């Protein structure tokens, strides 16, 4: 048995302590700090009421702060917004709220049911995060820290993981959380035909053994480096056995912060607070939660203004800016939630010639785009210029790398050196994606910039349902292609390299047959140490950022507007989704 101590991602503590104050970036504050925070909050509110519009914007996430005018500092900047203490702001109002119900409106939940094991895509994550709890959960900084687990060990052959579990955790039905609940979840997933979205987990995990109520072993076929991140939420064994699989899907019971109450398909999902939730620092301070599905942005705005909605997700910059003059509302900016890439797709065809296989051409195309201007105008400042193909939260991200500068004259010279002064290409894209707003307009803007250095580009925009299968087919798309990557998915370097964009095996790859990157992906897959995986990720991304098989064009923020019933809002760094609600404080 080898103990692993990976400070980057997975913390281990065999002594089974209570969750440390501040572990999740919340709640580690003294009474005095709380009072001081409350005073600051009151002063802030007064200033907001009297001051200019910009005070309504709050930057949130791991690097959160109530930062006046923070949005205006972002365009063109290559640095992550500087922040101080989101938690100071938010923790001040943790006492029980007078507001009983908060309604959170989202454009879609894509919900089939409310079962935490059916979180098939990001939009449904809020439902999963309401009902259940992970063994290792993300804190505000996006780090995976012990939650239901207190630590783990890994066998020498790397095929057996032994997790130690927290005591004193109750499910919604009052039963105690034990190792059996993890086995129940894993058995359910391995035996169920419907869990196709967990195919990778099913392909690698063979089963679970209960050693004692606080110890469980997970067995895998091959070394499974990202098991901790991929582990499913435990569910109440007693309840599951009592009601069966079909009923459980409709009314699940686990040990998350919210108990399920009702679901009206495509309308809303209602919850009431799990008062016995084990982590007081993340326990909501209001009693009832409603996720309302309101597809149309104008209806969400109307709902906010009429008071039927307390928190609205999925707002465009123009709409959110409309709330700047309204003192009862706050615009909360969650930075770095998604990046729009312009991929040099022709590198997927090793046997076919293309000007995009020349690094000088790729660099010229990048230098031709004034990305700071795009951030400022198209995204109203709620975006920044990315320096790398890795999102900032991906282990291996290189903070020292500088953004490729906007230099149209230099771009022209590079094209001339490459003998491509009369370059003509097709830029493919989808018409819309929830990850990066206005992606088609972004593509049109890029084409306009390329036109200024003499590159003739033709836009080919199709629906996402058509575009993504074309991408995977790797015989339809030619030229360059725009795609959006949700940052919160890339919590492991392999997800960026092997699961998404940059290796021969990745379904949405943009480079096929590159030995260096494929070898690095294999090494990362076989590496069980998170710190070493991050180091390998750094090697890979440095190479990718030099080669520019993908041009990271713009990194956008998600905008969340909160109404008068919400004291403060914060979420996991780079998380665009409406859950978890652990860091929302009701009035």
């Amino acid at each position, binding site marked *: 048995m080898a103990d692993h101590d990976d400070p980057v991602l997975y913390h281990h503590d065999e002594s089974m302590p209570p969750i440390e104050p501040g572990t999740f970036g919340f709640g580690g504050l003294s009474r005095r700090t709380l009072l001081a925070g409350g005073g600051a909050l009151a002063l802030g509110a007064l200033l907001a009421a009297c001051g200019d519009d910009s005070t309504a914007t709050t930057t949130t996430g791991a690097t959160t702060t109530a930062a006046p005018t923070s949005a205006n500092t972002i365009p063109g900047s290559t640095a992550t917004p500087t922040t101080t203490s989101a938690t100071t702001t938010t923790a001040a109002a943790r006492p029980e709220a007078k507001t009983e119900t908060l309604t959170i409106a989202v454009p*879609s939940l*894509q919900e*089939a*049911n409310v079962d935490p094991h*059916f979180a*098939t895509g990001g939009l449904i994550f809020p439902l999963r995060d309401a009902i259940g709890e992970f063994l290792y959960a993300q804190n505000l900084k996006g780090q995976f820290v012990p939650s239901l687990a207190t630590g783990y060990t890994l066998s020498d052959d790397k095929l057996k993981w032994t997790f130690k579990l927290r005591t004193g955790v109750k499910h919604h039905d009052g039963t105690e959380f034990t190792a059996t609940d993890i086995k129940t979840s894993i058995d359910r997933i391995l035996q169920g*035909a*419907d869990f*196709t*979205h*967990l*195919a*990778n987990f*099913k*392909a690698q995990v063979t089963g679970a053994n209960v050693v004692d109520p606080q110890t469980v072993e997970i067995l895998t076929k091959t070394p499974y480096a990202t098991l901790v991140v991929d582990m499913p939420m435990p569910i109440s064994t007693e309840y599951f056995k009592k009601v069966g699989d079909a009923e459980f899907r409709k009314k699940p019971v686990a040990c998350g912060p919210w108990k399920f109450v009702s679901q*009206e*398909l*495509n*309308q809303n999902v209602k919850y009431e607070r799990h008062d016995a939730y084990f982590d007081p620092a993340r326990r909501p301070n209001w009693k009832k939660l409603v996720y*309302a*599905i*309101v*597809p*149309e942005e*104008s*209806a969400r705005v*109307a*709902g906010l*203004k*009429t008071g*039927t909605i307390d928190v609205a997700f999925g707002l465009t910059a123009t709409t959110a800016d409309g709330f700047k003059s309204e003192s009862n509302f706050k615009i909360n900016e969650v930075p770095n939630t998604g990046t729009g890439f312009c991929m040099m797709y022709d590198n997927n065809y090793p046997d076919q010639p293309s000007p995009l296989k020349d690094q000088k051409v790729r660099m010229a195309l990048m230098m031709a785009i004034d990305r700071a201007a795009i951030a400022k105008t198209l995204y109203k400042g709620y975006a920044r210029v990315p320096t790398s193909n890795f999102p900032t939260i991906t282990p291996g991200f290189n903070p020292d790398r500088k953004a490729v500068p906007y230099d149209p004259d230099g771009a022209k010279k590079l094209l001339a050196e490459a003998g491509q002064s009369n370059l003509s290409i097709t830029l493919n894209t989808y018409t819309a994606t929830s990850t990066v707003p206005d992606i088609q307009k972004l593509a049109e803007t890029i084409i306009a910039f390329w036109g200024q250095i003499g590159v003739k580009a033709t836009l080919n925009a199709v629906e*996402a*349902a*058509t575009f993504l*299968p074309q991408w*995977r087919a790797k015989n339809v798309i030619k030229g360059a292609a725009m795609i959006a990557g949700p940052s919160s998915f890339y919590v492991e370097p392999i997800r960026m390299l*092997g*699961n*998404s964009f940059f290796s021969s095996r*990745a*379904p*949405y790859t943009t480079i096929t047959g590159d030995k260096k990157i494929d070898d690095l992906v294999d090494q990362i897959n076989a590496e069980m140490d998170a710190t070493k995986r991050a180091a390998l990720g750094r090697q890979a991304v440095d190479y990718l950022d030099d080669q520019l098989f993908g041009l990271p064009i713009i990194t956008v923020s998600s905008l969340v507007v909160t109404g008068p019933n919400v004291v403060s809002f914060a979420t996991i760094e780079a998380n665009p989704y409406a859950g978890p609600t652990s860091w929302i404080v009701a009035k």
Partner: protein
Amino acid sequence: MPRYILARLGQAVLVLWVVATVVFLLSRASGDVADLLIPQDAPPETKAQIEANLGLDRPLFTQYTSYLADVVRGDLGQSFSYRTEVATLLKTALPKTLQLGAAAFLFAVTFGVSIGVLSALKPGSWFDSLGKGLALLGQSVPSFFLGILLVLFFAVRMGWFPAFGYGIGTNLVLPAVTLGAYPLASLTRLTRSAVIEVLRKDHTLFMRAKGVSMVSLIVHTLRNASLPVVTLAGIQLGAMFSGAVIVETLYAWPGMGQVAIQAINARDYNVVQGVVLVNTTIFVTILLLVDISYGLLDPRVRRRGRGVATAS
């Protein structure tokens, strides 16, 4: 008349079969659904297993015949994204769309026919000008824009109605008005012109000369003018039941339109097929009823159905 109805029924079944076939072929041509059900890093054997489970590894013709047999039995298959029976899903959404469509239809017919008749009785009057203006406005303002205006004024500013959400009471008012505005305008214009035409006919002038009461005159005129109005109303009703996607989205109304949008985004083609089939069935049924109503409203149609020659 029975022969006439049978012929129309046969045509309706033919239309449904053609639509079912086209939808089946188009949905298969749009890509591999198994890709949508597995994560990006799933092994290839998992994909093959899913294709086998869904029957996607069978020859296309076998899939087609199996699909048609299921449809006839009312089995629309499983939703890939919702992971439930498509029929169950549609049973939840359809009543909500029908409620909205019926309310919008009631609004459109009540006001459209009334304004049209009153405008026709006094052509050139201020009321006629107002009616024509409203009709022009109703036909030219897109429903999404009208909906936003109604929400801003009646929900946000006045607070009289909810801004969005499903419900039978006040929740229904703004979506029904938004959905019914266009058909109201069309019905107003058509009713006005049809009534004016009938009012100019000799038999109507004769009734007027005899001093028949205004109520009797309107009843008589309406029946004679009803054929084009009923035809248009039938088409509009079908369109309201099957084409409320924008209004449902605008008001977060959880009907067939929302299900269709979600299914299209997820390439959940069993649901898409189901929605199209149900909507087509509704449309075809309404048109069938409209055709049958011709026979009831106009004796000449009945006589033609019996093979009796009529002078026209």
